[in-house]
């Protein structure tokens, strides 16, 4: 399955809904999307990963790159994920300490710290 991307604005937050597989082939599309959003002045991103079937280290790299970009503008990048197999990849790489991970988009949008 290919990667699907859509964005929505809620207040000062931009929600990026990702679906499909994030791997070495599709990750550049996600990178482009995040770079474009930050270049357009969207510095508070919520990446909704509930529709993601597969994530590898290339995808993790893109998310870390996105985090670095928004932080350069004192922004934030929050993730929404409840899938154990995806969460496991964040755990084994220690990235659960780097990304705020929420159980719903509503929770991520409401989060402030």
């Amino acid at each position, binding site marked *: 399955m290919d990667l699907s991307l859509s964005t929505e604005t809620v207040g000062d937050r931009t929600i990026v809904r990702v679906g499909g597989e994030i*791997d*070495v082939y599709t990750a550049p599309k996600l990178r482009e999307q995040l770079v474009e959003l930050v270049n357009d002045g969207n510095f508070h991103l919520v990446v909704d990963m509930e529709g993601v079937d*597969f994530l590898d*280290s290339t995808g993790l*790299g893109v998310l870390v790159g996105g985090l670095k970009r928004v932080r350069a503008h004192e922004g934030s990048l929050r993730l929404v994920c409840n899938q154990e197999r995806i969460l496991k990849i964040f755990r*084994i790489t220690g990235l659960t300490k780097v990304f705020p991970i929420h159980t719903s988009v509503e929770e991520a949008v409401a989060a402030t710290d």
Partner: protein
Amino acid sequence: MATVELRFSALPEHVRTARLVAAAVARRAGVDEAVLDEVRLAVGEACSRAVGLHVSGGIMAPVKVVLIEEEKQFSIEVGDEAPRVSPGDRASGAGEDADAEAEEDEMGLAVISGLVDDVEVTAGEHGGSIRMTWPTTPSVAVLP
């Protein structure tokens, strides 16, 4: 004895195919269903890494994946033909790109070693390989 062998041009779009083939063969070999996600991820990481090494080294040779079914275990060996050079040999101008590549390489290996208990990484002047092994449960014979 090799059960299935796969060679693919070092292009990112073929890594998914390698993942699907590996998971299908692993399932048939008797790897636990709960572990198949890990097999898929680990083989994807190893193939992505091999593709990256071939692309950055301008190597035209295909990436090779060997799926080996043995009595109580299942192994996947992902081989590349990228010659390794020691850090001291690296051109001094390689700079940031080389560092970024090395970082991605390490992240991929970190995921593999976090997922797979039995993993062996080798590298030499003619290329390298990652061999990962999982235990299999023999299928129970159903008696009439």
